[in-house]
């Protein structure tokens, strides 16, 4: 900027951005190298340059690499969704679950896994549909000439309670089958592969593109509806579009990762502490941090008690609780 003096925070933001990117790359590489079965860097190189159909290839190419990517994309989606929702609802405790996405996905997935076990290939699709359906119901309930933030939160809570009841009912009446669903419900990347990467990738791309366009509107919305209108912004349209974007991001993440909590809630907070609340920097920082956290947590979760895998959602819960106490 020629005339305007440079914002002194710019340097710090750039450094954090680079650090975030470096951390993500490191997490990805570590995730590919580390696992229940030890592989050498040489093995990894072979898999990429001279793929053979052997065990190492199966492990690295079909199991580990896609899993790491699914984790990263999930982290991006959930962090962006949480960021956007906290911005629209002007509520720092908003997370993707608040619009009913988790409740809808959970009920749909559980229903398929327990009642129609033959259709488990459709669990991600069911979860995604359930997520969007629930979000749609929450929108309808809270619509009053536009998306009203307080009503949205209340409707989301109501829906989560209702669907939660449905899930409890399933658990009680099919208590012997619950065993087989718990890993999904806790949030896990068990058995995820390239199919799942392809499932979530388009939404991540849409999400990142949307975020690049949306930051100005999110910032303007922080100034209050009246000021935003005074600046010529169509507040209702902006809010609606952003909520839909958040629902797609969260729904696609839940469909491949199960009910993975905390990412959408904590990551925007950490990002805000690092780069401030300007969405132009908050969104990309959250995306980087989200991806890094999920990949790192999953790597830890699947190797800490090797070869037994702990669902990554459990690790997140253990990280999340102390974080909130810290925030206090």
């Amino acid at each position, binding site marked *: 900027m020629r005339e305007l003096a440079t914002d002194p925070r710019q340097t710090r933001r750039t450094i954090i951005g680079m650090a975030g990117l470096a951390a993500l790359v490191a997490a990805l590489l570590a995730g590919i190298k580390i696992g229940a079965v030890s592989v050498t860097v040489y093995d990894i190189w072979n898999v990429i340059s001279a793929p053979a159909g052997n*065990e190492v290839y199966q492990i690295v190419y079909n*199991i580990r690499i*896609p899993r790491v990517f699914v984790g990263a994309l999930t982290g991006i989606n959930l962090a962006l969704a949480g960021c956007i929702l906290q911005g629209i609802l002007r509520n720092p405790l908003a997370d993707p679950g608040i619009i009913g996405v988790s409740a809808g996905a959970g009920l749909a997935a559980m229903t398929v896994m327990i009642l129609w076990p033959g259709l488990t290939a459709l669990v991600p699709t069911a979860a995604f549909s359930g997520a969007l359906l629930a979000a749609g119901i929450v929108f309808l309930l809270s619509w009053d000439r536009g998306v009203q933030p307080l009503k949205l939160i209340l409707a989301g809570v109501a829906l989560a309670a209702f669907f939660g009841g449905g899930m409890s009912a399933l658990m009680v009446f099919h208590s*012997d089958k619950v065993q087989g*669903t718990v890993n999904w419900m806790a949030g896990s990347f*068990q*058995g995820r592969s390239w199919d799942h990467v392809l499932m979530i990738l388009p939404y991540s791309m849409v999400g990142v593109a949307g975020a690049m366009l949306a930051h100005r509107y999110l910032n303007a919305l922080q100034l209050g509806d009246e000021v935003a209108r005074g600046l010529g912004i169509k507040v209702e349209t902006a809010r609606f579009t952003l909520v839909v974007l958040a629902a797609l991001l969260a729904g696609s993440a839940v469909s491949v990762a199960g009910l993975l909590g905390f990412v959408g809630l904590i990551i925007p907070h950490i990002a805000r502490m690092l780069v401030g609340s300007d969405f132009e920097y908050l969104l990309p920082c959250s995306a980087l941090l989200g991806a890094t956290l999920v990949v790192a947590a999953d790597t830890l979760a699947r190797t800490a008690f*090797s*070869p037994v895998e702990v669902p990554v959602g459990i690790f997140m819960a253990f990280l999340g609780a102390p974080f909130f106490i810290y925030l206090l």
Partner: protein
Amino acid sequence: MPFHHNLIPVLDKAGIPILLQSIERYQQIIDTLQFYGELAGRPEQAQTVIAEIQSKCQSVIDRNKNHPAPSVLVVFGSPASFNMATDSSFSGDLVKQLGAVNIAGKYDGSGGQMGYVPLSMEYVAKQNPDMIFLITHSSDDKINSKFQNELANHPAWRGLKAVTDNKVHVLPYNLFAINPGTQVGDAMTVLTGFLYPEVSKK
């Protein structure tokens, strides 16, 4: 089951004696049968049933004694969300009795508390079991081919030897998802049919 444990004080107050049993091993079935036989005052009848079961099982075990032990994996759930049976689970115990090597067998935690654990797919790929058993939530036979298809197309599973050799078998829900009680003999027969097909054909 915790739910059942909660009943104890309630029934105690009502003066109703209650006995809680957990049946997680083959041996426990035998013991329970004996116990009920005595309780009902018909120990001989219990003995007959026990003898029947035991002979069935023994014959199965004997027949297979000289055959190479296949390595297996018992999966509960579905490709979306699954756990593996350890030696501390009923099906794991059964598999062990029949001489197969369960690659998840020993991961039952200290004190054998964990019957089913989530195992890393990498570990499964490395161990590459000869056979995979699926215990699903359904009693439907048509599911078998569906799951076969699903696994054959799943990038993480399809590289496994058991999948390419078509040795993925769905175990009947009523015999394996919940413990089969007196039908344990049938459960063993089913397993044997899969584990040692040549023997069963005789």
